[in-house]
């Protein structure tokens, strides 16, 4: 992730004047963009590159600035600082209708006085396209989102899922270089949301278009996006693939925001080759793998995802050639939460802390299940731990 990019000399400011269109030049470059409302800094110096053909998700809790950033890309807000380069051209101050970018609104914003056909054709009529061509394009879009036969209906005669499709078709009709989606599935119920996620991904791949989606739903972001930018308090906290984000979060905040996590605060005690021993208050000494960027002495948090923690009655089954350095925590089952596919156990450790373990229910009969107050051993390998600065 680019941190502070120096302000360039403005050589690429002129329209279409990018002298060296490098092959790996990003489609969209956001440089130190900031936006303040009154005294509230909604977006605080965000820099980000997005390549053509990417499906990028902006993820964050409400009020983190993700929607403001999206609205700046669409042109509904002008950034106070920074530049937004689309194909090398600065569009930060351009009006919405001057940008080859379209947006799908959270509440769809379909024009209630126009039919499905006229809604989809709305943007095309402003391009000076011939009537026949518009009709062809509309038909193509209607087929693309599978709305055949509903062309003459008004938005209030459609279901939520159908409205979502009209909104998508309307935003895609102009073939924008970049499609922005503001919480596009928030209004749909769970089943429909899941099938629509798949359809959106399919569509994006087929059209080879660049999508930026804003969502507060991490599962949605993980499922659809090839890269995710997590925002917190107006700043980009981490930009990574879904896997990286989940398995190698950069900070405590991200680790806690994305998925469930066990965190143990402690201090690094000694180094043993590529292993690090961290003394924690709640779980004793934990052996962890040294992070990619070497860390010095100081305070750390050890983070372990619940599904990486194994439970057993007597401890790890010793396998030949297996790691000897295994973290072993003993305690009693304090809480059981059955979720269908998995069961989450909360184990109260003898040392006083709490650890959460997620166990797959791989057998139908509960032969392996643990009962409340049962003594168990929770264990995990050093490689399953992530060391985070406190």
């Amino acid at each position, binding site marked *: 992730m680019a941190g502070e990019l120096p302000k360039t000399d403005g050589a690429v400011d002129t329209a279409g004047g990018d002298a060296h269109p490098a092959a790996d030049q990003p489609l969209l470059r956001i440089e130190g963009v900031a936006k303040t409302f009154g005294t509230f800094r909604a977006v605080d110096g965000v820099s980000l590159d997005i390549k053509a053909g990417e499906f990028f998700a902006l993820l964050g809790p409400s009020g983190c600035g993700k929607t403001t950033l999206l609205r700046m890309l669409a042109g509904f807000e002008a950034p106070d600082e920074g530049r937004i380069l689309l194909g090398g051209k600065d569009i930060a101050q351009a*009006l919405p209708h001057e940008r080859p970018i379209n947006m799908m609104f959270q509440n769809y914003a379909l024009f209630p006085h126009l039919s499905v056909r006229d809604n989809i054709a*709305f943007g095309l009529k402003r391009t000076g396209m011939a009537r026949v061509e518009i009709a062809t394009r509309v038909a193509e879009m209607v087929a693309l989102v599978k709305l055949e036969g509903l062309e003459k209906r008004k938005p209030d005669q459609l279901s939520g899922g159908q409205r979502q499709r009209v909104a998508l078709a309307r935003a895609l009709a102009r073939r924008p270089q970049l499609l922005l989606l503001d919480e596009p599935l928030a209004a749909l119920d769970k089943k429909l949301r899941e099938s629509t996620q798949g359809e959106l991904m399919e569509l994006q791949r087929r059209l080879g278009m660049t999508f930026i989606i804003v969502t507060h739903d991490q599962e949605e972001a993980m499922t659809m996006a090839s890269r995710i930018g997590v925002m917190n308090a107006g700043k980009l906290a981490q930009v990574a693939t879904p896997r990286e984000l989940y398995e190698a979060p950069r900070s405590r905040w991200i680790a806690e925001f994305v998925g469930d996590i066990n965190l143990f605060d402690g201090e690094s005690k000694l180094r043993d080759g590529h292993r690090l021993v961290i003394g924690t208050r709640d779980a004793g000494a934990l052996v962890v793998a040294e992070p990619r960027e070497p860390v010095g002495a100081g305070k750390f948090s050890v983070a372990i995802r619940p599904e990486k923690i194994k439970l057993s009655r007597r401890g790890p089954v010793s396998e030949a050639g297996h790691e000897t350095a295994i973290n072993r925590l003993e305690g009693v089952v304090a809480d059981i939460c059955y979720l269908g596919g998995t069961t989450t156990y909360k184990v109260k450790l003898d040392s006083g802390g709490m650890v959460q373990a997620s166990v797959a229910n791989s057998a139908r009969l509960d032969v392996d299940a643990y009962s409340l107050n049962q003594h168990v051993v929770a264990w995990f390998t050093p490689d399953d731990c992530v060391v985070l600065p406190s």
Partner: protein
Amino acid sequence: MRKFSRLSRFNVASLALGLAFLYLPILILVIYSFNASRLVTVWGGWSLRWYQEFFNDRAMIEASWMSLKVAVSSASIATLIGTLAAVALSRGERFRGRTLFSGMLYAPLVMPEVISGLSLLLLFVALNAERGFWTVTIAHTTLTMCFVAVVVQSRLGSLDRSLEEAAMDLGCDPVRAFVAVTLPLIAPAIVAGWMLAFTLSLDDLVIASFTTGPGSATLPIRIYSEVRLGVKPEINAICTLVIGLIAMVIVVASLASKLSSSQGESAAPL
């Protein structure tokens, strides 16, 4: 009448009482407009005599014509200005004193007409304007534009801002976005505002009598001065025609708003 069987007797009675209270005087006025007798209170059989009398009464016809002209012009100007004011107040950037302006727009709604009339009269005298058609029209415009603004503003307030943003996103500059999306959606409110302004202007007596000049009396002024000399059944006939006109306007307005508001939201109520 079937629906009434589902209402309780009490409800039927209260409905009848309420309707009678509202419409009985008007009904009597309408019936007596067809009276053949010279006396307003004595029934002398059916006749269209007083309608004929009215159509031969040059002064009355002129006053009616004057009233219609004033109502149409002032309603049209008020609709234009009122709509613009409503758009500016609900869509413009937040400026200092916006709340004050918004409040000031409502003030004429509650201002006693005598005060509005007198202040306008003083203004016209100070400007040395010749009082007649235009002064009444301007006076009615100032009175009715705030009604239009209130009706249109409430409609704009209930309209989703993202509709305009979507139009801009799809290639409209702000002006075209307003014309292509906002205007069709607030049209029922604009029509309702015009109708409201029209009827308000048509029946205004106080402000018109302050601001009119010799030889340009509006219908209410004319009727009022006639009545002071004694009520003729001709007045009943005129009133019946006015009632018919206003009823027609209201029916047309409600039909228009029903037809144009296909999104399930009705126009702002009158």
